């Protein structure tokens, strides 16, 4: 008995239709991005926004090269957290990487929140930092959501992708904001949490291109 005889005509019709759709998808030849290409895309969006905004801050005098250099440990830890989170979000074998992402995030958040109090604190309102961080994070958030369409829904994956996008505002805060630990904890880390939450909420409602893990 051949396989064709084992299925009913209606099932055979369904299988032929599904196979035709899949073969059409193969023949359209749409490029399939590998995970490391997606990683470069997400990190490129994050760092691209940071570099452009940093250039703007330096040119307008809102940040100084010395001030940026003084915050290198914080910037380094945030960059590390962004890389680890992006890997955790996009690596096909995400389980082990999730723990590393949480560790990197906690380490970065502690290093940023516990930075030395500035000698002369700026007087700008806290919400301006929140708004600017959300604005700066909008492009990486859009990129993260676009990439998440290619994966099965996963709260953990969306959370670390959102955290990676959220490092954009946090890095800009390290360069352009001269306020104390309480301000950082509330407004900078708050913006980070909001961005990660938005990505989780929006990602759960995305129309998927693929449900592969």
């Amino acid at each position, binding site marked *: 008995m051949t396989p064709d005889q084992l299925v009913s005509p209606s099932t055979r019709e369904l299988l032929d*239709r599904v196979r035709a759709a899949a073969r059409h998808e193969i023949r359209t030849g749409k490029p399939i991005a590998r995970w490391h290409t997606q990683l470069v895309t997400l990190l490129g969006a994050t760092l691209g926004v940071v570099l452009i905004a940093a250039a703007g801050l330096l040119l307008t005098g809102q940040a100084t090269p010395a001030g940026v250099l003084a915050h290198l440990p914080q910037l380094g830890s945030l960059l590390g957290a962004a890389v680890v989170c992006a890997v955790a979000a996009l690596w096909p074998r995400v389980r082990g990487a999730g723990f590393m992402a949480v560790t990197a995030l906690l380490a970065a958040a502690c290093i940023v929140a516990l930075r030395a109090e500035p000698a002369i604190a700026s007087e700008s309102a806290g919400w301006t930092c929140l708004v600017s961080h959300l604005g700066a994070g909008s492009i990486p958030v859009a990129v993260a959501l676009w990439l998440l369409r290619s994966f099965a829904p996963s709260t953990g994956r969306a959370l670390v992708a959102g955290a990676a996008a959220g490092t954009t505002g946090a890095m800009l805060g390290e360069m352009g904001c001269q306020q104390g630990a309480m301000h950082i904890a509330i407004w900078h880390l708050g913006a980070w949490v909001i961005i990660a939450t938005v990505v989780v909420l929006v990602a759960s409602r995305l129309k998927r291109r693929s449900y*592969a893990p």
Partner: protein
Amino acid sequence: MLRFCSGDESAFDALFERHAVAVHGFISRIVRDSDLANDLLQVTFLSVVRARNRFQPGALVKPWLFTIAGNAARDLLRHDKRAMGSVEERRQSRERSLEVAFPDPGLRRLLSNALAALSADQREAVLLHKVEGWSFSEIAAAAGITETAARIRAHRGYEKLRQILGPQVEM
């Protein structure tokens, strides 16, 4: 699968012929609606085509396909209003399966009461495994958990049922 990943289109046909019927059966058992199952079969294989580069060499193909199908079915059941009816159909179907598996009304009532004492996850795992005959890999794919976690859920469910029912029923 590896030939398909490297661009051999004929390898897709072989993959499809080997697994499509099983994947369709798996989806049908999750959603209990033939139209939804047909749509989800297409979604599953389009997902396979679009994510073929994420298949890990050395991994088993069938669990990967079932995981994709389970992900698509769960997402549909969460969001699609059309699928809401099938959730109720699933519940009714499980009750019918219980009637077939345990025709004695007294024993069935005893079991129903004992099953009600399990957590929803344990109850689902026990019913799918014992009553509906699903494999642990199928339960894992449908629930979005690892096969080990599915085994543990069912095992804990059986343990609890043994405690409740004692020697009255052989599980």
